[in-house]
């Protein structure tokens, strides 16, 4: 517990500036995704790639601006936990799509 990053005496800002920045960023990301989707300026593949990229940025906004992701009492074990979760999620989704697409190509 030596590397405590959760000191109470750290000064709290008088205005929740971090939270407001996070909210504005999440709104911008949402409307950019909506605008791109509704505009039909790019083919399906590239546009979905961009929208998924924006969604990943949204995760980062939630984690770092709202969820106090860098806070931990001692070693940051929760980062390891979440990383394993994300690896499994990517493996399940990527693996499923890969296997099922392969199936349709064979038929």
């Amino acid at each position: 517990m030596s590397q405590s990053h959760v000191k109470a005496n750290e000064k709290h800002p008088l205005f929740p500036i971090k939270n407001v920045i996070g909210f504005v960023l999440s709104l911008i990301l949402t409307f950019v995704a909506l605008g791109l989707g509704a505009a039909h300026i790019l083919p399906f593949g590239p546009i979905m790639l961009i929208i998924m990229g924006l969604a990943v940025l949204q995760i980062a906004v939630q984690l770092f601006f709202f969820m106090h992701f860098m806070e931990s009492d001692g070693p940051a074990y929760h980062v390891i936990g979440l990383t394993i979760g994300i690896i499994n999620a990517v493996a399940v989704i990527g693996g499923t799509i890969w296997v099922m697409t392969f199936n349709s190509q064979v038929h």
Partner: protein
Amino acid sequence: MALSNNEAKQRSSKHDTSRLLEYQRHDGPLNILGFWIFLATDLILFACLFATYLVIRTHVDGGPTDKDLFEIPGFTIETLLLLTSSFTGSLAVYEMRNFNKKRLIGWLIVTVLLGIGFVGFEISEFVQYVGDGATMQRSAFLSAFFTLVGTHGAHVSLGIIWMISIIRQVVKFGIEPINARKVFIVGLYWHFLDIVWIFIFSVVYMTGVVS
């Protein structure tokens, strides 16, 4: 003997006031870590539902497709409600750390109300689909859609009940280490549901709009 010494040491650090309130009791950091691990497993649950949806998205059996069904205003309102509630939930933790009980309760209530608004819009969306003949039994696409989006909606509904019960405890016992940990953890849950919704917005609704 060594073990009980260790325990005594942990208990004496129960009110280590140099730490943030939610980390002061010895079980606070353990509960928070445990909850992060729960979120990792819940992520895998949603990954399975997303994988299923992506594979059978186009299997509509002559019924309505995602493009026919989804309307931009409806799911945009739902997205904005949930994004805003995630923001107000983070303000609740901010006010808790400033020891402002009234504002903490106020932001939690706003968060709950936005959550209820979200669930309300989602229910009316589902009712409309079913009225148009797009039921869960109609096609593989609709089964996957209602399962994925419905599981998220059930999570949000549970989160609303959970948050109301925590508001009651804050009203009763004020801002102290146990309540601080509970508010922090319900906040994590709420932000996680916003992350899942962002993916439903992108993978389910935006795919329908773009295709």
